[in-house]
């Protein structure tokens, strides 16, 4: 069965602190991996995709095929990073983690 686990429903960090949003997945084959973000009162949008290997808004995500994890990281959180984050292998979305960055 295809399954995505984002273990933290809510993650609160102080501004300037490092952030790691965890994502573990169970998926047959080799799915393309994505992180999506939804800021308050905005549409869901793509944050980054593994295949492009880009760093977007300071976020990166490392694929660990052995652990089937795709954690999202940022070294220094900013208040504007507060949002809902979804991990998605292919078209299967996790339940999301709400990141709250405290000033």
């Amino acid at each position, binding site marked *: 069965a295809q399954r995505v686990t984002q273990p933290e429903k809510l993650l609160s960090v102080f501004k300037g602190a490092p952030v790691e949003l965890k994502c573990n997945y169970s998926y047959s084959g080799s799915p393309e991996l994505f992180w999506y973000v939804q800021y308050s009162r905005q549409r869901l949008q*793509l944050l980054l995709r593994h295949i492009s290997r880009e760093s977007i808004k300071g976020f990166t995500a490392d694929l660990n095929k052995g652990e089937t994890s795709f954690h999202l990281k940022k070294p220094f959180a900013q208040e504007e990073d507060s949002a809902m984050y979804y991990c998605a292998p292919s078209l*299967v*979305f996790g*339940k*999301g983690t709400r990141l709250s960055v405290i000033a």
Partner: protein
Amino acid sequence: GAGVSQTPSNKVTEKGKYVELRCDPISGHTALYWYRQSLGQGPEFLIYFQGTGAADDSGLPNDRFFAVRPEGSVSTLKIQRTERGDSAVYLCASSFDTGEQFFGPGTRLTVL
């Protein structure tokens, strides 16, 4: 140009009724996706079109749900004999081929 649009933004219906939800993708986008999102959950994939044909409809929960995209542009998601459990936000997204998906604002469906 305009982004993905969805109409209506809100729909309230009674149990057992039929509803249609419309999605206007970004012009030129070949792929179109439907998801539904219940409270506290992530988007749940329903169906994906490439052009006019459904490339993957494995997410449709049962035969009460049906979607069409007759001219490869606008799509309509149709739900027959609605049930209270169908209440959710229905999201549409479009992409050029299988590239980045651009999402619409969603239609909030409430079945009373």
